[in-house]
């Protein structure tokens, strides 16, 4: 006999005028190696086929299934029930628009984010199909990959005090993306270009430094380091002109 588990799940269907936000309880017996992926699918297939939630890869790779698990944002697919108490509270991620129950619209939010930070290599070079690729050290490739691993699950945004108060706040995922391109020599943008994007109250200067993002990132991306680096660089960029007056030819041209 497995443990009897009680799931308290947030229910609300915005498409149904009669629906009122509420919590609903479901009961399951715990099975060996049970994850929230297994549990939620069993609840839907055996108890309530209207229950809305999102899974895709069920392997911690795609970022679809982030939700508030006992008050903490995490991926449901890799959360084992064994690691949780017998009573499990599941809520949708805050900040993102609710689609229904545990399902939120991360697609629109992240497309927006990608447009805001102009998440692509900016270059005036033209691709030459006959030439070798530009060389890069393997070390640098690994460093870029480290930041490229963000799966846009939204956990860092949900855990962010500022994003919860100010919906237009860009969030750690955006800062991480900017840091990724700043590191990439193929991107010809200069500090000033990035300054325009992130050096605002909705950007890096609005970060309260609570670092909930760093605590919850399911991919363990070093977000704290990126926030620190960006703040330093952007802070320097904002006062640099003062130093340029004293030290001509100072840091003005440096990326």
């Amino acid at each position, binding site marked *: 006999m497995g443990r009897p588990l009680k799931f308290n799940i947030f229910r609300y*269907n*915005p*498409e*149904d005028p009669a629906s009122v936000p509420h919590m609903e309880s479901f009961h399951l017996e715990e099975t*060996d*190696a049970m994850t929230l992926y297994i549990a939620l699918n069993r609840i*839907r*297939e055996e108890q*309530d*086929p*209207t*229950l*809305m939630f*999102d*899974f*895709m*890869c*069920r*392997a*911690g*790779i*795609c970022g*679809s299934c982030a939700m508030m698990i006992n008050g903490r944002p995490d991926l449901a697919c*890799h959360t084992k029930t064994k690691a949780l108490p017998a009573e499990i509270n599941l809520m949708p991620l805050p900040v993102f628009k609710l*689609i*229904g129950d545990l*399902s939120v*619209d*991360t*697609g629109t939010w*992240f*497309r927006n984010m*990608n447009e805001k930070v*102009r998440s*692509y*290599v900016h*270059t005036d*070079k033209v*691709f030459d*199909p006959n*030439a*070798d*690729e*530009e*060389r*890069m*050290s*393997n070390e*640098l*490739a*690994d460093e*870029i*990959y480290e930041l*490229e*691993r963000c*799966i*846009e699950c939204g956990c860092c945004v949900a855990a962010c005090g500022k994003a919860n108060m100010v919906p237009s706040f860009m969030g750690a995922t955006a800062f991480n993306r900017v840091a990724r391109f700043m590191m*990439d020599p*193929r*991107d010809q943008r200069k500090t000033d270009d990035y300054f325009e994007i992130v050096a605002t109250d909705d950007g890096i200067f609005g970060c309260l430094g609570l670092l909930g993002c760093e605590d919850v990132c399911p991919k363990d991306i070093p977000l704290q380091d990126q926030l620190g680096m960006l703040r330093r660089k952007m802070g320097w960029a904002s006062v640099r002109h003062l130093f340029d007056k004293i030290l001509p030819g100072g840091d003005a041209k440096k990326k």
Partner: protein
Amino acid sequence: MDTFYTDLLCVGAGLAGERVAVAAASQGFETICLSIVPPRRSHSSAAQGGMQASLGHCCMGEGDCPDVHFADTVKGSDWGCDQEVARMFAETAPIAVREMAYWGIPWNRVVPGKGTYYKGGKEYEKIEKKEKEGLITARDFGGTAKWRTCYTSDGTGHTLLFTMDNEVVRLGVTVHDRVEAIALIHDGETCMGVVARCLKTGKLRNYLAKATLIATGGYGRIYRETTNAVINDGSGAIIALDTGIVPIGNPEAVQFHPTGIVPTNILVTEGCRGDGGTLKDVNGERFMHIYEPGKQELASRDVVSRWMTHHIRLGKGVPSPYGPHLWLDIRHLGEKHIKTKLREVEEICNEFLGVDPITQMIPVRPAQHYSMGGVRTDKDGAAYGLKGLFSAGEAACWDMHGFNRLGGNSLAETIVAGKIVGEKIAEFLEGYEVDFKTAVVKDAVKKEEERIDRIIKGADGKENVYEVRNAMQDQLMDYVGIFRNGEDLQKAVDNLQVIHERSQKVGLRSYSLGANPELALALKIRGMVRMALCAAYAALQRTESRGAHAREDHPERNDRDWLKRTLATWKEGDSLPTLEYEKPSKVWEIPPGERGYGVAKIICTEDPEVCGEKKPETN
């Protein structure tokens, strides 16, 4: 009802769909992508190991070129592929890889100097050349003559998909996510777009397009034990099959990947074996070198999966509550290698198994992995049967994989086919006009509205959609697996016909407004069962063994009678697909011969078109 007009409609926004969209949009054509998930969540992201392209920069890839890649691909396909397509693919892959580098992929690079690598559990030395420093490197994968698989750690699909979607953002391509195409709009000759259902609101929409692309990935979810994501239910193939005109090519060609973890069937990459990982049995002993002395663990996937199953049948499997399995051992690769080159594997093992692959062996067993079959297209990606309909990627049967796909060739196909088909679609769109016939559109919408209404009301019955799905999956798992035989396949076909009846009587158990996940599955289940029947019935008819299709009662590859591709269509009202056949290739650069791995019993063809003047070599 909302109606959207566009030049190109891409149904599916994974790598293939987005690459086509990028090609068309950069030619100035208006493009809309539909995706049932945010595009960056597409299953392309789960591809770990890498993408094949014969750059030949790393020392173990020296001398590589498109010719060698082409030959590996043809052999891998067991001569089931279209050689014209495979040739075009191999020639374009290096360009596609470099283009992705230009767009920002942090490909792993050549590090000059002495290094070590593992093969069959033994350590060897290699020396990378100074002059190649910083160029894109590659790792070893199964069924290849050279190290050819370009990679970013073991997150290659992820970086490719994110970079491709960055291009989509840069070009301003419209993406409608959480929208599912549920029917093609066509008049029997021309495709005019799709009827789609919004998975946020549940409302129907029309998309009217000059060109429509199906790029929805594979149909692995007709099997219960699959490495595929939950969304890989073949929805694109289903809407093509529903036309009664567009054929599915080789639906029986289903790949099983050797290393799905037990019990969750999550994939661990072929890169584990490519980097020197070994397979072991209940006694902790290697066995692949006994069956395949040459390629050992790195024979093609169909061959390794069969020997693993064979070895388990000999009683050499490790008993577990989830049935017997084997071990994948990567411990000797060392902590540093695992933590940098195989970090997803490390994460998956720790998080989903509670196994640390640095100190423990990984429980693995073959699981359904890839659909070589799909919407049959010509070499330009144009679907048979309907003008204006195209397909690319795993959803398509283009057909460069034939009866077995090589590891690293699926990511490569998405990018390469996406590029080639995208450019062909742009050519097609140039000056092309189509009449959107309002009566045809109205009828298509009405048909879907009525279908939804009947399912909601349970007008045709009250079958539980999940039970029907489980019944279908049981049939495929039990009778249409790695080893097949006539008796089992007949059972599957008989039982699936009954399940097909049931699938047409599905009724919802409860009704909720909006997305309604039960309805989304209910709309697909009949099509899924039809895909299952296509696979089972085509497998029953094919009385030979070729690539992933292994008949115990017909163990030989029969080039005399079966050097052909299955084309399955479904006529409305039928209870079985209609099967027709065509020659797999018009061009035979490499006449059928031995693969160099796997058991080779071949019944030769004497067709001069295929083997020219000289008779093929066999044992």
